[in-house]
């Protein structure tokens, strides 16, 4: 699957980012904001069940967190398995990697149906938050 993802432009529709971001292979190499993210803020987002929602599905190296999900692989070692750019594409729109994925596309509203009024036209995370999460994920090394 990944081999077929030639360099392409991904149309991002985050409120402040109605612009095209280059997808190269299975990655988005460049920061969405042009700035590096903050791993501490990223960690807080990943653990926040209203914002990141990650622990609904994933577990991870967070022994203090009760009730972690088991619908998805553990986030432990994600930074060893994947490059920063690969993690960014996974976060922005995992459907590019696996069209049937249950993981939400955190920075795309493409193809969504019956979105609740409070969430309409909004991506799950902002570009800045995506960068923070990516910066945190790369620190998760085995």
């Amino acid at each position, binding site marked *: 699957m990944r081999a077929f993802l030639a360099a392409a432009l991904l149309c991002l529709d985050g409120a402040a980012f109605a612009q095209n971001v280059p997808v190269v292979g299975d990655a988005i190499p460049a920061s969405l904001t042009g700035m590096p993210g903050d791993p501490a803020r990223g960690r807080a987002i990943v653990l926040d069940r209203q914002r990141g929602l990650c622990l609904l599905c994933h577990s991870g190296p967070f022994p203090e967190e*009760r009730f972690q999900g088991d*619908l998805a692989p553990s986030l432990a070692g994600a930074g060893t398995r994947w490059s920063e750019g690969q993690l960014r594409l996974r976060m922005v729109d995992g459907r590019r990697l696996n069209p049937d994925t249950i993981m939400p596309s955190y920075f795309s509203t493409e193809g969504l*149906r019956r979105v609740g009024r409070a*969430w309409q036209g909004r991506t799950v995370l902002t570009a800045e938050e995506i960068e923070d999460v990516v910066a945190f994920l790369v620190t998760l090394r085995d």
Partner: protein
Amino acid sequence: MNHPWTGPRLARVALLLAVAVFGPAAGPRSGFETMSPELRAMQQDDLANPGMLHVAEGEAQFQQQGCTACHSAEAMQGVAARYPAFDAARDGPIDLAGRIAQCREERQGRAPLPREGKEMLALSVFVAHQSRGLPLTPNPDPRMEFVRRQGEALFRERRGQLNLSCGQCHDDNAGRRLAGSLIPEGHANGYPLYRLEWQGLGSLQRRLRNCMVGVRSEPFAPGAAEYIALEAFLAERARGLVVETPAVRP
């Protein structure tokens, strides 16, 4: 907003025990089977099951509201097990609460009751309770087939900002944990039921709204045809499970 799937949960070892003892079961498994032993005991003991208070309230309403002029409680046996049904008058499907509303408004000429209000819930839980222990036998009316197919399409359709279908949780991931919540197969054989998280009795439509809001989707309006179609499909999917009303759920 309080996310419906977060927050502390009772420990649930029931599934593991059940699988260890009985092996993987064939056919649909009620949410009852994957609850903790404490909650199962609560549901099964009529003195401990908070839903039974509402059944008693419904029995009183059944008389006070004049239903007994035309119906006996015995005549209500088996009704809930074959709902939703096809209603010739409205040329469309109707659920139990819709039928009760029809009797009240058209046959008794009285003002509508709020669908999720105390009285309608009490009447519904009383009527549905008359079918407790009977297997779900989806309505054989051929006109329901189309409705069930609509319901199945709604069940498989991804929705909301999180872009998830009912089936992705209740078919593909049943038995797994969404944070602290064990994902049940999502059968509707116990409604109206007492849910601890609600601290009260609630309808199937309320449950479905919770699931829709959970994926950040706009729920359908109360009483919408989509819910009845979903309910018709859920009944087919749960064929053979027995009615548990009033069930208890976390």
